[in-house]
């Protein structure tokens, strides 16, 4: 779905925003608690604000305030809903935000926050917020994706007196589909050369199949594979999917020198497959000192990065 100016979803969003703005300032639920010393103490401790006018009664009494006052930057704290069930109050922005989520603009990033303080608030005052939707702009193409900027204004009242204001703006955006969340793994450095004689094997491990070349004419199994059957000269190639069971035929524990992409000590084994051919791979999920010649193993395909999967071997017996 795309949203461009003039499209139906855009018209709907714009209409909702206009309706929200037309509502003007809408009062919300009063703060759950009046301004109080315990919350001030928690907040100043967390913020590292040691000003005694917020917590020391005697000091505050001697100050210009004459009593304890709350830090102005706590304005939003007093009316912020907790994690519990919310009271069913609506603001003029709720419907617009919900419509944006439903339209695929699920990403959110705060872009502006400006607060204005009219006066200090005192212990015992119970604040009431009021919200006004003041701006709606979009769609805009941003680095994060296409989205809308929504701006609102919150005013906190003590009784009828506004004590603080906040202008808040967010970008609600549709996350870019191509690698918006850059969780790309680094490329595994030890890469095989793959050509038309060997591609079937590497394609196999990517789909979880351990493929052994099988001559299309005489049926001989062969690993590593090659273009011509050494037994019957046939270039007619097929493959069998191995059972994935085998046993360690020989193995080494690599300690030194460092190998890119691997952390020593690691185990590399020649595995004799149940089908008779041998194959080299790492033995994993097993301490190196437990690996033995003859140990039964089964294949486990491991994605090394977005492109390379390697067949590895895990013990069959605990």
């Amino acid at each position: 779905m795309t949203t461009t100016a003039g499209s139906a979803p855009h018209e709907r969003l714009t209409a909702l925003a206009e309706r929200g703005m037309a509502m003007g300032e809408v009062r919300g639920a009063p703060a759950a608690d009046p301004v109080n010393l315990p919350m001030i103490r928690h907040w100043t401790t967390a913020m590292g604000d040691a000003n005694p006018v917020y917590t020391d009664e005697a000091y505050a009494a001697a100050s210009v305030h004459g009593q304890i006052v709350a830090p102005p930057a706590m304005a939003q704290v007093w009316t912020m809903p907790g994690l519990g069930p919310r009271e069913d109050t609506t603001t003029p922005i709720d419907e617009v935000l919900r419509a944006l989520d439903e339209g695929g603009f699920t990403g959110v990033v705060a872009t502006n926050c400006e607060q204005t303080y009219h006066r200090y608030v005192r212990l015992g005052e119970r604040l009431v917020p009021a919200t006004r939707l003041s701006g709606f702009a979009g769609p805009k193409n941003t680095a994060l994706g296409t989205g809308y900027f929504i701006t609102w204004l919150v005013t906190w009242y003590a009784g009828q007196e506004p004590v603080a204001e906040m202008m808040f703006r967010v970008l609600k955006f549709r996350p870019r589909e191509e690698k918006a969340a850059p969780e790309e793994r680094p490329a595994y450095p030890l890469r095989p050369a793959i050509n038309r004689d060997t591609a079937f094997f590497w394609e196999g491990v990517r789909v979880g199949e351990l493929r052994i070349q099988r001559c299309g004419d005489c049926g001989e199994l062969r690993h590593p594979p090659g273009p011509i059957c050494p037994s019957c000269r046939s270039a007619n190639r097929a493959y069998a999917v191995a059972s994935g069971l085998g046993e360690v035929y020989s193995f080494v524990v690599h300690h030194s020198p460092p190998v890119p992409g691997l952390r020593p000590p690691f185990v590399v084994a020649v595995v004799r497959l149940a089908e008779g051919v041998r194959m080299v791979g790492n033995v994993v999920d097993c301490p190196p000192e437990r690996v033995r010649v003859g140990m039964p193993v089964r294949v486990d395909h491991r994605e090394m990065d977005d492109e390379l999967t390697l067949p590895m071997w895990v013990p069959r017996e605990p």
Partner: protein
Amino acid sequence: MYSISGRTAIAGIGATEFSKESGRTELQLAAEAVLAALDDAGLTPSDVDGLVTFTQDANQEIAVARETGIGDLSFFSRVEYGGGAACGTILQAALAVATGIASTVVCYRAFNERSGRRFGQPNAGLGGEPSSLGVEMSWHVPFGLLTPAAWVAMFARRYMHAYGATSEDYGRVAVAMRRHAATNPAAWFYQRPITLEEHQASRWIVEPLHLLDCCQESDGAVALVVTSTERARDLRRSPAVVTAAAQGSGAGQMMMTSFYRDDMTGLPEMGVVARGLWEMSGMSPKDLQTAILYDHFTPFVLSQLEELGFCARGEAKDFIAGGGIEIDGHLPVNPHGGQLGEAYIHGMNGIAEAVRQVRGTSVNQVPAVRNVLVTAGTGVPTSGLILSRD
């Protein structure tokens, strides 16, 4: 049947010092070794009409010829497969001389293998080459199996499993080589012998290989002059006659990673070389007074003793027990200290030692030497020589 046996000889040997940092270019090392070998033979650069080296050598034949004042070349050739090329260079030279393609061929190998590109370090790009080797390596490199020590360790573990050999059996090879090097002033480990306990206490490189199972890394160069036996007799030194020379690779051969054939306890390519040497020389193991066995890692010394027929399968550990391959044992192996003790010059320093043993001029001379066997790199397609007193 025409045979090259006995027709050619090594008439001169030359080398630079063996170090960890030569402080000069590989080309300079090559030129110095070539000139030293010609001086040793009593020849001049203008006598040379052929040059042979390893495909891995970074110095082109024409560059070496320019630096040394060698003029026209009628023969140049290179041998593949890492250290497996060593004796193969002498085979190439002997073929050229015996067939009249060239009269005097110098074989050389020069590198800064310690201070420059180190073969023991992992090369993550090994598996990325769009060549048959790159594809071959791609079955191993992605799993971190990409160092020579690791490749050899895979065979060593299977050999231990099959024959009951232990890390101490491998350690005895290292102890013998370091004993020999201790009395060789040209050796890096001159006057630095080790004990079996020190071998066992050395850190793991790739289990089951300890540090002291792995040969050192060296900077240096060696050159060898090959000419006809007839001509060699007129030169400064007594000839080391090429009684036999052979190359070999086995069925299902790979570079150090032939994990997919036979029982992984032998070196079939060395078996091919052994058959070639015995056939061309008409000899058997009892005719050898000493042997230069390629020792980049200790376990393959055991396998070579078996492939060459010095002992039966699985019995090399008994053959080397009690100092069997030491200078006073039943088969002194690597009197110069080998690559574990003297230097790692890709096996070419071992050929030089074989020549000294034939001449009777080694610092660790084995008594009454008539024939010396030399092998090249193991785990790869390889080569071998039997050099004899004239």
